[in-house]
């Protein structure tokens, strides 16, 4: 089956006072219908910029994107990066919808909940009448677990909790029956028990509706619980792509390994465990190191890692890594890497 989204060599450059800055470099991945792909990385890794580049929503005037972002629906294949603003408007919401981290500020505080859910349906003609839109909104609210939907339709966002607002945002995203959902840290701002509810809701909807879900997160726990495949980003580049189970069983990039090591766990054999940090900190995009961008923090770095850019290469069937020493890493004892 051809993927819904096929991103090839996506590069995004934004202007800054100190000149152009490449915030996303040569990012390639594909997303199939019914698949959940995790895009994981820390702040500044470019994961949100990838999402925003796809929909022409980079919040910096004068930015430019190159590469290809092919979106395929039943009829044809469209390169999102070449579309006019008008053409993109027809894609957003109807074909590809986005869920952002901060649901409370994503909603218009002076609009009723019902209006926020029906707005896109009415403006792009997905719903034929106000009544049809209202019926659909009630349906969606039930689907995302908003109780007492008849009454809540007329409520305002400030009457809703953060978790309920995120449910409204999800309902609005689903309103025009998109094929792809891009969810940018959809649970980060929520309490632990509510985060769990929203994540499971999102995964259930994705599975039931056969959506392609691009799930952006910084949390390896979220990836493990929801994604079939995962792309790890560091300093604007993808450093590893693999099936989730394979990556967790044995990462092919030292940064992925480091992320797994420093993720707190609720259980382990050790009674008084210690977190294993990655030394140093992520680089400033304006002063990127030569060669591999991770080499200053990498315990495996050699001379070759410090000079030339490292290409993303296939290290096993279905697995890509941007590391010269991926095979050596795979052969090492897990606890010996970041000792």
């Amino acid at each position, binding site marked *: 089956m051809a993927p819904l989204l096929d991103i090839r060599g996506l590069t995004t450059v934004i202007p800054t006072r100190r000149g152009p800055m490449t915030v996303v470099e040569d990012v390639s991945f594909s997303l199939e219908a019914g698949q959940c792909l995790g895009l994981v990385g*820390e*702040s500044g890794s470019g994961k949100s910029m990838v999402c925003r580049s796809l929909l022409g929503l980079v919040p910096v005037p004068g930015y430019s994107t190159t590469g290809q972002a092919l979106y395929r629906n039943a009829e044809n294949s469209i390169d999102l990066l070449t579309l006019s603003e008008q053409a993109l408007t027809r894609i957003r919401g109807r074909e590809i919808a986005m869920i952002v981290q901060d649901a409370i500020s994503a909603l218009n505080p002076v609009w009723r909940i019902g209006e926020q859910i029906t707005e896109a349906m009415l403006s792009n003609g997905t719903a034929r009448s106000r009544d049809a839109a209202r019926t659909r909104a009630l349906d969606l609210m039930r689907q995302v677990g908003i109780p007492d939907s008849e009454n809540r339709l007329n409520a305002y966002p400030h009457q809703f*909790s*953060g*978790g*309920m607002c995120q449910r409204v945002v999800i309902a609005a995203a689903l309103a025009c029956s998109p094929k792809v959902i891009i969810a940018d840290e959809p649970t980060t701002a929520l*309490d*632990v*028990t*509510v*985060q*769990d*509810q929203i*994540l*499971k809701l999102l995964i259930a909807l994705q599975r039931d509706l056969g959506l392609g879900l691009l799930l952006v997160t*910084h*949390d*390896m*726990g*979220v*990836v*493990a*619980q929801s994604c079939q495949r995962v792309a790890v980003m560091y300093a604007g580049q993808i450093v590893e792509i693999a099936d*989730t*189970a394979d990556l*967790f069983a044995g990462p092919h990039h030292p940064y992925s390994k*480091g*992320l*797994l090591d*420093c*993720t*707190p*766990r*609720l*259980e382990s054999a050790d*009674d008084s*465990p*210690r*977190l*294993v*940090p*990655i*030394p140093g*900190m*992520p680089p400033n995009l304006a002063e990127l190191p030569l060669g591999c961008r991770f080499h200053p923090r990498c315990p495996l770095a050699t001379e070759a890692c410090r000079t030339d850019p490292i290409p993303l290469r296939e290290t096993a069937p279905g697995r890509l890594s941007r590391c010269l020493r991926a095979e050596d890493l795979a052969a090492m004892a897990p606890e010996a890497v970041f000792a």
Partner: protein
Amino acid sequence: MTGPLIDIRGLTKTFPLPGSPLRRLTGQRPRSLTALNDVSFQIHKGEILSIVGESGSGKTTLGRALLRLEEPTAGEVLFGGQDLLKLGPGLMLAARRDLQMIFQDPWSSLNPRLSIRQTLAEVLAVHGIATGAGAQARIAELLALVGLPADAADRFPRHFSGGQRQRIGIARALAVSPSFLVADEPVSAVDVSVQAQIMNLLIDLRDTLGLTMLMIAHDLSVVRYVSDRVGVMYLGRIVELAPSRRIFTAARHPYTQALLRAAPRPDPNRRVESVALQGEPPSPINPPSGCAFHTRCPFADARCRAEVPLLTEPDAGHTVACHHHDRITEPA
């Protein structure tokens, strides 16, 4: 064990809410929000005690009320036999040489117009600890202690990453050589790869300086790596407090168990399909009757709706506030 370093008794904090004109006209009492409701526990010398809870649980108010950054409404905070809440401003300033705080947000808790040297020198001067050459030597020592290079002193907060700023915040707290630190979500604004560095730094400082710490967190998995004991708060009350190992292996409060189940496990072979806990924390403005957790609790019955459960101690050192704790030993 030489008795508690800090003994908190019945600590309560209510915030008045702005009254509406209608309420005033109809003679209704102004509403208030009880952020901390009769909280009592002890912190032992040299331990790291973590308090975990969701938003609205009162965990941040607890940390701030302890140091009187929020003036508590009732209760006692005994430190060295003295009730901190009864100290006048001069004595309280002196007490703060022993009691310091690390703030959650490393971006807003540093003055952007002061260099790191000025930030630290200010603390040393306010507390009359050192000026001039003595202060400079202490500043160099503090930076080394938190793992920052000596040349960090003459840079400004904007030159540092979140993790480094948090180190500066820790250095500032340590400047007065305190014996007790409140760390309010010290890593929640820091990237994962750096979070472990900060946690390990706090453990090392505890060990080398003999510090005692109260750590506030919203996430159980992180505190597991640093805590000797863990307390769980829900809507202004402590619902369970036990040695860290017991919280993670033998939690008895249904809320603690739900928090443990809700944390996404970094293990794709152990996917959990079911939701850990339905509903959301109720508003502390209008808390449920009886046990505040009864609206979300799978074990709740009539008694839970009517009667506030008291903290009991079913096992030595393990306290829990649940009417049904004796039949809840296994996770629901």
